[in-house]
Structures are given as C-alpha cells and as structure tokens.
C-alpha cells in the first residue's frame, strides 16, 4: 500500500488540486515513517554489524540468517494479513508444532509429496476452524486462537506420542528445504515466494483492499458490500497454511520434529516481527515487506549478539524495548490521526 502514496501525486491524470498544508504535515511524516519505517534502523544495524564484526558480511552468514528465519518469515507474512484484517492469530506456534510432527510421521513412510500435502491441508483446516469460530461465533480472535493453540498443542503431543521424531538424511524429504539453487537453499526461495505472493495479494488485488477495509472499519466495509466475515476467514486459513508450510520447511531443514519444538514462543516472535515492521495492531493498515524487514531486524539483533558474544540475557531486554518503541509509535500515529 505504501509506495502508491508517492507515485500518485505525480500522476498526470489527477486533477490539479491544492496540496493541503499544516495539519497534514505531522501525519504525512508518520505515513512516510511507516513507509520507510523499519528500513532505516535495519540499514543502520546492518552497516553497524558489517563494521563491528568481520564474519557478519560473509554471504554464508547472511544466507544462514535468512534460512533460519524462513519459517518465521512465512508465518509472519500471512500473520500480517490477519492483523491488517483486524484479527490476531496466536495459534501459529501450535499449528507449526503440529505440522512438524504430522509431516515427520508421514515422511518416514510416505512420499514427501503426500507428507507435505497432508500437512498443508491440516494447517489450512485449523485456520478454517479459527476463522469460523472468530466470525460465526463472534469470539475474540485473541481468545479463540489462544484456546485453539492449547487444543492443537495437545493433538500434536498425541500424534507424536510425546516422542522426538528423527528423519533420515538420505530421504527425499530432506531435499524439500535443502536443495541448493546458486548457494541459496530452497527453504529461502519458498519463503520468498510466499512473501512476494502475499505482498502482492495485499497491495495489488481487490481482495487486498477488502482486507484493509475490513480491518480499518468493518461496519463501513460491510455497508460498502464487502463480505467481511469471508475475508477474515480466508486470512485465518492463509495463516494456518503458512504455519504448516513453515513446519514442513523446518522439519526438512532440521530432520527432526517434536510436538513442542520451538512452537511455544514462535507466535510471539512472529507478532513481534510484524509489529516492529510497523503494521498496526489495530488493523486496517500494514505491509508484508515491512514485516519481512521487521522479522529480519530482530534476527539481526540476535545475530549481532551472537557474533559480538554478548550475554543473550541482554538480547531479550533489547527486543522488549524495540517492541515497545514500535507499538508506542503506532499508538502515537493513531492518536495524531484523530
């Protein structure tokens, strides 16, 4: 949504009209902050790390960072759409956990294609359930997805019987996320595809506008003829699907799966990335590529701590402060707008 702001003003078909001044300046600054937003601190951090740490700028280090974040980035890209539409999906960590054990179990005996397809179907289905509960039963999205994450977490334990599933390095399933294309693993490429497709979906399609409208003012959207509930359900389905894909990617990368394998904090890491990227928690505004930068920003902070061998204790504190600043700026921007 963001870059249209700049190219529209130069468009010749627009009737020449006076550019309003004064009250808009602060607002326009905020909009441009949102647009450039996280890009600037990201670049600063990137340059700082390049100078401070020798190994940082190595292609392999950078690829590793993105490879490690591929799963988070997939989920966060879809999560952005949920937030823009005025929802919130806290169950992505649990869906991720469930899909790792589902895909892990299936990959032991079935073809990778079957394993991955079934896993994606499971993720999409859980997303559908989330969406239906939120819209049909009108239960708050936060509560719904929190409750669902307990349910799904339990099912994941049942599926794996609490065991760690270990896969064979020689299986075809390993190739799913680890096939190298010019030194770039397929996990990264799949993630990029998801990010690009979802970003275009939000900015360039009718459905994208419907998401923004539903999140910005559901009543207005409904009266303008938008089927708000349908739009919301679809975003939850996409979110569930993305979490399942992320689970499959990570299982293939790591060749192991566990019901609670990192899924517990994942939902919050994802949310932090989205918010640091500048997507409004109140809905109606947001951008997938800024979420992309936001997630990587947090990852760079982590990487910097590792490279500089700083106590990881401080990493959490810094992350918390970054998150507060991001949310604070969002709240401030919304107050200015009134």
């Amino acid at each position, binding site marked *: 949504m963001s870059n*249209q*702001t700049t190219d*529209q*003003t130069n*468009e010749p*078909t*627009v*009737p020449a*009209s*006076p*550019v*309003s*001044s*004064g*009250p*808009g300046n602060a*607002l326009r600054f905020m*909009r441009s902050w949102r647009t450039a937003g996280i890009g600037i601190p990201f670049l600063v951090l990137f340059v700082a790390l390049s100078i401070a740490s020798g190994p940082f700028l190595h292609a392999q280090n950078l690829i590793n960072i993105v490879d490690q974040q591929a799963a988070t980035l997939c989920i966060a890209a879809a999560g952005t759409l949920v937030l823009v539409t005025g929802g919130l999906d806290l169950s992505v960590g649990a869906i991720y956990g469930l899909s790792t054990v589902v895909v892990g179990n299936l990959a032991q005996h079935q073809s990778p294609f079957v394993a991955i397809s079934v896993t994606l179907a499971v993720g999409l289905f859980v997303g559908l359930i989330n969406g239906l509960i939120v819209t049909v039963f009108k239960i708050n999205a936060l509560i719904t997805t929190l409750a669902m994450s307990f349910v799904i977490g339990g099912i994941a334990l049942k599926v794996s019987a609490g065991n760690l599933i270990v896969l064979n390095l020689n299986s075809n399933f390993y190739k799913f996320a680890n096939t190298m294309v010019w030194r770039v693993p397929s996990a990264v490429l799949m993630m990029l595809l998801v990010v690009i497709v979802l970003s275009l979906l939000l900015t*360039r*399609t*009718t*459905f*994208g*506008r*419907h998401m*923004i*409208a539903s999140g*910005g*003012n559901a*009543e*207005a*959207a*409904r*009266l*303008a*003829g*938008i*089927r708000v509930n349908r739009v919301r359900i679809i975003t939850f389905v996409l979110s569930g699907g993305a979490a399942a894909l992320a689970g499959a990617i990570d299982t293939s990368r790591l060749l192991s799966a566990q019901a609670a394998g990192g899924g517990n904090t994942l939902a919050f890491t994802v949310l932090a990335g989205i918010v640091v990227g500048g997507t409004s928690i109140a809905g*109606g*505004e947001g951008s997938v590529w800024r979420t992309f930068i936001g997630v990587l920003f947090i990852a760079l902070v982590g990487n910097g701590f590792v490279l500089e061998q700083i106590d990881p204790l401080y990493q959490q504190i810094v992350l918390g402060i970054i998150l507060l600043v991001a949310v604070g700026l969002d709240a401030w921007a*919304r107050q200015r*707008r*009134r």
Partner: protein
Amino acid sequence: MTNAQTNDVRSTAGIPGGDLVVTGVSKRFGGVPALTDISLTITPGKVHAFIGENGAGKSTLAKIIAGVYTPDEGSLTLGGRPLTLRSPREALDNGIITIAQELAIVPGLTVAENVYLGSEIASRGFLNRREAHRRFDALATRIGFDLSPDVVAGSLSIADQQKVEIMRALSRNASIVVMDEPSAALSSQESVALHDIIRSLAQRGSAVVLISHFLNEVLSLADTISTLRDGHLISTVEATGATTESLIEGMLGRSLSAAYPEKILASADAPVVLTVSHLSAAGVDDCSFEVRRGEILGIAGLVGAGRSELVRAVFRDAKVTQGSVHLNGRQLSGRHPSESIAQGLVLIPESRKQMGLLMGRSVMENISLARLDLVGRFGWLSKHRERVTVAALMEQTTVKGATLATPATMLSGGNQQKLLFARSMMCSPSVLIADEPTRGVDVGSKRAIYDLLVQMASEGMGVIVISSELDEVLGLAHRILVMRHGHFTAELTGDDINESNVLAAAFSEVRLG
C-alpha cells in the same frame, strides 16, 4: 490528584462564581480557524444559548469554557479572577461542568456510582456506600428524578443516562452547566422534563450554557442567544426580541430559501424503481411505499421514529421479519448489503466516520471500495484505471482540497461526505438512500450536497433522503413520508409540504394506510 486537593478546591467552588467573561478568544485547529475573536459574558441565573450551523464553532466555544480546549488567544475571567483551564478537571474545580453530546456514562457502574464518579464519597480511601445512597436520595427528591441508584447505568435509556449526567452536575453544585445538544436524543415528554430542569437550574442561580439545534427550544428556554457563524460571533441578543426567522438569518447569513436548489419534479408517470411492501423489522412496523425514477422522497420523523431502521431493512442490512422489497421489478432477496448494491440499491449511512469511511486510508481507496471490480480484472487492480475513474468522480462530486492520496481523515466533514457520494455514484445505482447526508457538514458544502442529490435524481435515480433537520427534508423532497413508532403517519405532496403538517404528523397517533 489526591483526595485532599480536590476537596480543598471544591469547598471554594459551588458558590455561584459571578460572571464568566470571555474576551477575544480565538482557537485554531492545525491552522484552520475554528473561533475568531469571541467576546461574551455568561451571567449566573441565566440560560445562555449558542446557536449556529454545524461547524460554526459553538461546540468549540463550549469546550473552551469546559476546559477541554485551551484558547490560542484571548482570556476567560470568572467573577473578576482570571481563569486558566487546562483540563475538564480544572473546569470542574471551578464549578463548571459539561453535559456533552456524547454521554460520559460508565455503563458497567450503577447510577449512584456514576453520579459520584470522580468525587466518590469515601472515608480513608474506602467507599461509603450508605452515605452515597443517602445523598443520592436527597438529590433525587430535590430535583424530582425517579432513578434507582442501584440500577446499572448501561441498561438505562439515553434520556435516563442523561439524567444521571445532570445529577452528576448538580451533585457538584456546578455554578456553570454547559449542555451540548441535550435534547437531541430525547422523546418529546423527556424534552419537556429536561426543559423544566434547565429552568430550575437557572432559577437556583446557576448559569446554563445551552447548545441546541432546535430553535423553538432555544427561544422558549434561553434568556440570551449568541449566534455564531464560521467561527465568528454574529450577535448576542435578548431572547425576547428574537424570532425563528431572525435566528436563521443570523446563522446562515442569508434567508432560508436560497439554501436549496430548485425542485425538479419527476413526471407522475415515471416508472417505479423501488417498491417496498408491508416491510417489518426491528423498529419497523408494516411499511409500504414506492419511489419513482427521478423522484426525491423525504422521510421525516422524530429521532427514534424508525427512519434509519426502515432504510437499513430496505438495504438488507437488518433482519427483515416480514414483507418484500422490489427493485426495478426484481425482488431483493439477498441477506447481505453486497447483494443490494449489486442489484442497484446504495445506502449512504448516517454516520460517515463509524459506518462510511476508512478514515486513515486515501481518498482513492475510499471512493473505489464498493466497486473495485470496475477497476480490476480477475481480482487484480489496475491502479491506472482506478486513478482515472476516481479522479473523474472527485470532479463530479466537487471534492476539494484533496489529492487521490490524501487520507480521508484530513478532509472537512463536507468533503468526507462527498467521498461517500462519489462511492455511490461509482455504483451507478437506480435507487440511492441518503441517511442524514449533511450531518456535521459546513454550510457551503451542504449546498453542494443538495445539488448532488438533485442532480442524481434528475439523472434518473430514485432518491430517498432522511434528515433530522426538517428544513432539509422540506427543501429537497418532492414527497414526504412521516414516520412515528416505526410506521408512516402521513404522506405529503405538493402544497401540503410544510413544517406544521410534518410536525403534526410526527406526533400523530394516526396510522397511514
């Protein structure tokens, strides 16, 4: 603020504070002047009315008196002492209390808790409920309200909630009570009761600042009337010398007739585009009517008569319990507004901020929202086509001071409303319903919106206009249906269209048809 502090200040308040003198007050919002050089005096024991069109600055002035806004220039004095108010709290401490347009009731608390909200009766930090009840009962008896102190305030009617606010004002011995549109949400009997309260407040020595759209109310209640227009104080007169006509002329700066475009009546044999038969829904009881091509139908009635409920039922935005709606001969059967729009029926809702616009999004996105299919293919948007289409619509609806990328929130009320007209035009409907199309719109834009309505009708749409401003319905409609209690009480055409007929029907118990 600690308890000790408030108590100290409050002990000095409560005494009628003498004249409140406003001298040379100006206020700007982001460079746009809202008030310019206002000077007036508010006297204890008098009802002082502020009147003016929406956007004239009367609410801004009231908010300055109430400490919500601080003036950019000018000063206030109370009983000769300079008065600097930085918050409503400080105004309260000086005996100034506001009863706002939007009620400030905490719905989950009881009536008594709401009355003593912010000045809880307590000893050593613990609430003293018995004492609170005793004082509440004393207050209620004194002013003749029969509210139960233990009822949850959220369950009360709007009128009763307003009583709670008034009791809050009285419990603090306010010397100046500012009332912003107090009777807007009240039924006629409730208004009468409110008027008695306002008079008794003044008799007891309080100054009442009354902001009202209802000129009859102003003329019967006020002692002094100040007229504002475009942020300037036009006049301050004694109510005894004023008439409705003189007040309107002061508010508009011209006489009423020039405010509306000429009526272009639809021919009597124009085809019927909308047929509503025996429609019932929540708040709507067995309503039937037709709208012809090119016709402007006005629906009049008091607030709460069921006008908005009726059009929302017609628009399929509310559950219909009985009856049918035919558009161009085809029955509207959908259960979602999207289907009504697809069939050619469009609604401009009564509240553009809550129900109409995406305030933070651009002009372009707001206009194209309902018909994105026209500027895209297979769900993929063509930005170029969208810009061209929307720019043309902006020109047609005379949206000013905005580019395609300007966020809706930066537009004036009038231009925001024009965005909704542009959106409706893009749907090229056969019937347009405009619910309160000029609420909160400045005088100049009002005329532009009337012109748009007339133009859309003359292009062959059937137009339905709902307005709480009676003048507006009288000035625009070719035919008027008057509603009361969810059904029609009169149908007025031609020379029968006048204020007294509409008012008589609005209070009539006779059912039409």
